[in-house]
């Protein structure tokens, strides 16, 4: 259920995302989603890639500060209120969403959102009980 996301520290300067992207490309690693959280001075690149172990090792050996985080990919019906319903399933659970972003591929009228929860296991249990579909990594990367 849990998916490994790779995060990377980059300075907010021209060319600083291109270099790691090129490194992954040269090693045949496909970036399935990329989200940049930025401040004026620095940014965090969050990526879901075809081979996270290889990507993390490669980036570390090139001197990058890398973190592997477990996130959940959740299917959200692509109609008004779809997201609100999913989030509603967490109401009252005390489960905190640390951040979220959209996965750029859709399947069969469903949007996919990536969630980082403080406690992913508790989130999985809650969401599944509420009938929300949490995708496994291989479903996402196929």
């Amino acid at each position, binding site marked *: 259920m849990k998916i490994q*996301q790779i*995060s990377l*520290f*980059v*300075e907010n300067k021209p060319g*600083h995302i291109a270099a790691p992207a090129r490194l992954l490309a040269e090693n045949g690693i496909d970036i399935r989603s990329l989200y940049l*959280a*930025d*401040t004026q*001075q*620095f940014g*965090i690149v*969050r990526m879901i890639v075809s081979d996270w172990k290889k990507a993390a090792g490669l980036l*570390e050996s090139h*001197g*990058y*500060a*890398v*973190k592997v*985080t477990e996130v959940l990919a959740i299917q959200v019906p692509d109609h008004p209120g779809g997201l609100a319903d999913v989030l509603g399933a967490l109401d009252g659970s005390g489960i905190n969403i*640390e*951040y979220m972003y959209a996965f750029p591929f859709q399947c069969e009228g469903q949007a996919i959102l990536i969630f*980082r929860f403080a406690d992913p296991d508790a989130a999985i249990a809650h969401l599944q009980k509420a009938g929300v579909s949490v995708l496994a990594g291989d479903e996402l990367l196929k």
Partner: protein
Amino acid sequence: MNSILEASATGCHPASVPDYTPIAQLRELQLQRMKAVVARASQQVKHFQSRMAERGLAPQDIRGLEDIAKLPFTVKSDLRDTYPFGLFASPMKDVVRLHASSGTTGKPIVVAYTKQDIDVWTSVLVRCFAGCGLHRGDIMQIAYGYGLFTGGLGAHYGAEALGAAVVPTSGGNADRQIMLMKDFGVTAICCTPTYFLHLIDRAAELGVDMKELPLRAGVFGAEPWTESMRRHIENRSSVEAFDIYGLSEIIGPGVACECRCHQGLHIFEDHFYPEIVDPDTGEPLPDGSEGELVLTTLSKQAIPMIRYRTRDITMLLTGQCECGRTIRRMARIGRRSDDMLIIRGVNVFPSQVESALLEIEGTLPNYQIILTREQGLDQMEVQVEVTPHMFNDKIGALQGLQGRIQGALDHVLGIRVRVALVEANSLARSEGKAKRVIDRRTS
């Protein structure tokens, strides 16, 4: 005889015997050697000869040890101005080794050794290592850079002469350093303290517990470090951390080193005569006062160095060390007189920045101080590399870290500084030593 008995009773290496010389005998030896080295420099080194002549001084003016204060100082620029061989007292046929400083700007500083100089250098390092409790049978990893820098080869010769098994890894390639340390059962390491902190962090990432290794001693030098770094190193690894001091202009590492009492660094004063002077006036200061360390080489042949201004701030400690050594000790070097930055009228030392960073993060990230002048006002920015250990994928956490660093620096320094988080391995390094200050202020 008594000193020899004492030395063997403490289980020391025979080479450590001079450490226990009775004081009167030591002073007599120093005076004899001082007279000889001043005479030799006056005869062989034109530069020194003319300095002496300007002051109307002759070697015979040295009658007692205190007369050294009459002699002119030697400063770093004297080595630059006479580049490459101007201060040599030996012909090249007697020189067996040349070393040079990294010299980030212009010409490097060149130093030379005769066979006897190498032997003296080796002997003082044996005394350093023996004082750290190391002996034959130890496996010593030398992770100082080998090459023109004196650290690697100096420590190497000393460790070999001690009888240890030497693993000459030189600097760099942390993963391999850790692998060899573990696989060979290395018992002692010599490197810069910041490099060892880096090894501790990297070992944790590789799943190697530095507290579980046979490593029991770390001999750290080539840059000033702090008591908080010692605590940190000793908490996170199995080593007992020793401070070793030296500089290429005098001989390289091995001018002074801590013993297991860790109450200051014993100066091998039968070869290096220490004085403390006021860094502003050059006036000699009594033992126990803080000032600039000035060293005179008492036995060096190739380049006798008379009253060399080290720019290192310390004091000579009074009273004898519990270990029984009679040679004097100096306090740990916390700062250099030329390290001091004056920012908006406030004195700032890079070591203060270092302590603040270490307190916050529990690790010492590589950092750099950038000074600029904006609209006539000095600005200080501290750039801190984000190590994997510090990195967090939440913006808020990184901003929190930035804020904590900012707060600690403001508090310690008493001035407002800017803190910038930068990518790991993005700040310049030379010889494994980080370049700490970049001053872009145009005066």
